C-alpha cells in the first residue's frame, strides 16, 4: 500500500505543499487513512469508538482488496450516517433489518463482500429476529456489531444490553432486573446456531485489544469469503456522553464492569476446525 507517491501526498497535505517533493522521496508513509475510508470528519462524540471501528473495517477492506466489490449495510442508531464514511457502495437499512437487507444483496450477488454495521439497539432489540434467522441460515455475510449498552442517538435510553443497575433515561434509578429483565448476551445466544461460522467479542479499549479485534475481524471476513457461514465480531464500546463519564473512565468501566457481563473471547471458530476446514 505504501508508496513514494502516497507519502508525498500525505506530506503536502500536512505542510500545505511547502516542502519540495524531491526532498521527500526517501520518506516513508507509516500511517494514513485507509483508501476505503472517506475523508469526511466523523460526527461521533468525543471518546466514542465508532470511529475506531469504522477505521478498522476500512483497513480490512483495503487489506483484503475488496473496495471494488463491497456492499455495506448501515443501521439506524448513532452509525446511521456510516454510509458517508466508507468509499464502498453502501445501503442504509431500516432499524434492525440490516441482516435481511444483507441477505437480499448477498443472495442477489454472491461474489460480493457484504457486511452489516449494527449497534445493540439495532441488532439486539428491534432486529433480534433478523440476526437470529440470518445466523440460522448461515448467510454469507459479516456482521460488525457495536455494543455500548445504551441507545446513544436517541438520548441514552435503556438497551437490552444495559447492565443491571445502569442508570439511563428510561431507568433513572438503575436497571431493575425484575421489571426489565437481564442483559442479552448476543454472542452466547447466537453461538448455538449451526449457521454461525465465526463469532467473537472484544473490548475496544486499548491498542492491544484493537489488534485482537483486527485478528477477529479477519476471521469474520474469511467466514464469508471461504463460504463457511455467518461471521460476527462484537465490540464493547464506550458511550461516555450517555454514560455520564469521562472518556477515560468509560474505558475503565468497560474493562472493570462491562466485561463481567460480556466476557471477551472467541465463541465460534469453524475456520480453525479441521473437520470443517
Amino acid at each position: 500500500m505504501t508508496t513514494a507517491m502516497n507519502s508525498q501526498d500525505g506530506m503536502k497535505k500536512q505542510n500545505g505543499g511547502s516542502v519540495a517533493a524531491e526532498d521527500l522521496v526517501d520518506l516513508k508513509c507509516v500511517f494514513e487513512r485507509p483508501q476505503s475510508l472517506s475523508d469526511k470528519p466523523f460526527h461521533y462524540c468525543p471518546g466514542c469508538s465508532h470511529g475506531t471501528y469504522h477505521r478498522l473495517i476500512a483497513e480490512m477492506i483495503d487489506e483484503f482488496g475488496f473496495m471494488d466489490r463491497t456492499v455495506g449495510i448501515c443501521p439506524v442508531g448513532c452509525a446511521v450516517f456510516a454510509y458517508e464514511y466508507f468509499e464502498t457502495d453502501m445501503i442504509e437499512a431500516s432499524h434492525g433489518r440490516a441482516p435481511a437487507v444483507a441477505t437480499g444483496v448477498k443472495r442477489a450477488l454472491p461474489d460480493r463482500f457484504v457486511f452489516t454495521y449494527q449497534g445493540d439497539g439495532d441488532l439486539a432489540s428491534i432486529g433480534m429476529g433478523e440476526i437470529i434467522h440470518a445466523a440460522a441460515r448461515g448467510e454469507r455475510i459479516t456482521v460488525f456489531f457495536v455494543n455500548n449498552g445504551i441507545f446513544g442517538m436517541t438520548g441514552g435510553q435503556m438497551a437490552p444490553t444495559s447492565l443491571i443497575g445502569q442508570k439511563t433515561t428510561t431507568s433513572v434509578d438503575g436497571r431493575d432486573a425484575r421489571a426489565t429483565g437481564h442483559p442479552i448476551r448476543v454472542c452466547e445466544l447466537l453461538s448455538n446456531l449451526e449457521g454461525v461460522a465465526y463469532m467473537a467479542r472484544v473490548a475496544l479499549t486499548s491498542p492491544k485489544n484493537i489488534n485482537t479485534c483486527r485478528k477477529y475481524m479477519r476471521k469474520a471476513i474469511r467466514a464469508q469469503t471461504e463460504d463457511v457461514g455467518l461471521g460476527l465480531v462484537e465490540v464493547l464500546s464506550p458511550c461516555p456522553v450517555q454514560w455520564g463519564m469521562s472518556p477515560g473512565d468509560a474505558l475503565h468501566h468497560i474493562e472493570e464492569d462491562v466485561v463481567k457481563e460480556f466476557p471477551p473471547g472467541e465463541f465460534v471458530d469453524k475456520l480453525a476446525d479441521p473437520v470443517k476446514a
Partner: protein
Amino acid sequence: MPAKMQLTKGNEALAMGAIAGGCDCFFGYPITPQNEVPEVLSYEMPKRGRVFVQAESEVASINMVYGAAAAGKRAMTSSSSPGVSLMMEGLSYIACAELPCLIVNVMRGGPGLGSITPSQGDYFQACKGGGHGDYHSVVLAPWNVQEMYEFPALAFELADRYRCPAMLLADGVLGAMMEPAEISDDAPPPNVPEKPWATNGRNGRAHKNVVNSLVIDPYGLRDHNLKLQAKYKAMECETRWDTRDVDDAEILVVAYGISARLALSGCKLARKKGIKAGLLRPITLFPFPSKQIAECARNKKRILVVELSAGQMVEDVRLAVNGDVPVDFYGEMGGVIPSPAEVCEKIVEAAQ
C-alpha cells in the same frame, strides 16, 4: 416451448408470470390465500439459477427485497393482507430510496386476522400510501388468471421505468380460481434497463453508490418529496382501464379485480331486463383513471361502484366525477361475494 392455453390456478399463473417477467429474486413468508406463489417459485426459481428465500417474516421479506432491488435485481415478494400490513414500513423506505420491485397482495378479509376469504379491503393501503410519508406505488389490479400471469412483467417494467415499487392487488378468488390462460414456462427474458445507481460493488466505477432514504436536511427532504411527487404526476400516462358496453349505457358500473367480473355479469343481466348498463374497470388503481371515469360518466344517469369492501375506491370515483353524476355504492365485506343477480338488483335500483 411457446405459450399454450392451459387450465391454471391464479396463484400458479402469477408465479409463472413472475418468472416470465424476469424476477431474479423472490422472498416471502407463508400466508393464505397466496401460498401457491412461494410453493411454485421454491422449485421453479432455483432450477433457473434464480433466488428463492423463505424469510422468517414479512418484515424480513420486504427488507430482503430492498437489498436485492438495491443490488439492481428484479426482486419481489408475495403475501396477503395482514402480511402486507407488516411490510408497510419497508415499502415506505423502498419508495423513498426509489427502488423498483414488486409486491403482490392476494387480499383476504380484514381487519385484524380477519379471514382467509376474498376481499378488496386493502385498496386504501395499496393506493393511498399505506406506510408513512407521502409516497405511492404503481398498483395493478388483474381480473382473470391471464392477467395474473401477465401483470408481474408489466409491474416490473413500470417499476423499473419510474424507479418505484409496484403492487399487484389481487384477491383470494383470483388466487384460487382456475381458468384457461396462455402460459409459457420458458418466456424469452425481458429487456431490463441499465441500473447505474445500483449498489452492486463499485467494480471500477469512479464513485460509490448509496441507497438511502434518510435526508436529514428539511429543504433537501422537501426537494426529494417534490421529485417523488413529480414522478407520480408523470406516471399518469401509464393509466390503464377497460370498458364494456358503456357507449349507450345509462348506468355506469365501476369495479376492479374480481368485482369487475361480477359487475360485468350483473350488467348483462340488467340489459336482459331492459336497463342499459356498462362497465368501466380501472386496471391501474394508481395512477387512477379519474379523467377516463369523468369522461365516460358525462352522459350517464348514475354510477354504481361495486367493491368487496365498505367502500374505498368509491371515494376516488366520487372525486373523479366531482358531483356531476350521482354515485351509488354496493359492497360486501368479510369474504362474502355477491352474486351477479344481486349486482343486477343494485343496477335496477340505481336506474329507478
